[in-house]
């Protein structure tokens, strides 16, 4: 199918630890965006990567960082985890303009205890 693949699907971490989430975009897409979705809320934009550079960033602290690789896959890193970081983390891929819409992965459910 070559849709968006995210790993792991679930993760439990302790407060203060660091976590890395991974995303492989849909075949043909070169732009990757990351979103955080708290329970009962809409997704909140974290940042977007294109051509291995962070192109746009939402209102998230520097503890949230990312990377895009030459094959367009991406990682989201979160340092010094807080209880409030518990959420569903969604990766979405698209063409650079985003006009054709975004394809989302099923997300990584992160629980910080």
């Amino acid at each position, binding site marked *: 199918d070559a849709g*968006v693949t995210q790993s792991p699907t679930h993760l439990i971490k302790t407060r203060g630890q660091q976590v890395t989430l991974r995303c492989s975009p849909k075949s043909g897409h070169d*732009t990757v*965006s990351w*979103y955080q979705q708290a329970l*009962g*809320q*809409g*997704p*909140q*934009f974290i940042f*977007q990567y294109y051509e291995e550079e962070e*192109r*746009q960033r*939402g209102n998230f602290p520097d503890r949230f960082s990312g990377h895009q690789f030459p094959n367009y896959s991406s990682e989201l890193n979160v340092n010094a985890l807080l209880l409030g970081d518990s959420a569903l983390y*969604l990766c*979405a891929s*698209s063409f*650079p*303009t*985003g*006009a*054709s*819409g*975004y*394809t*989302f*992965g*099923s*997300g990584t459910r992160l629980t910080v205890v």
Partner: protein
Amino acid sequence: TQLLEQSPQFLSIQEGENLTVYCNSSSVFSSLQWYRQEPGEGPVLLVTVVTGGEVKKLKRLTFQFGDARKDSSLHITAAQPGDTGLYLCAGALGGQAGTALIFGKGTTLSVSS
């Protein structure tokens, strides 16, 4: 401040009823997208509207983009239990504001038979 206001937040109806979900903002969007999300999954794109006043139909779903490109609505005719889910509107500001999507909080729709 929530850039995109969705209403209602919750909707519980009987099979066969009609419903409308609204998405409003004081900002002008270059495009607006509607997604449907089921528990444990990422949002799935339903439609993208770009032109003010545009109307798009997807079977029993009708989407409209306001003339000023600040608001949108989703109308479902003869709702079915399979329509149950979280409906999200998302807008892209475009230009220097970029292509990242700003999501509303969503409308949780429950259709019972």
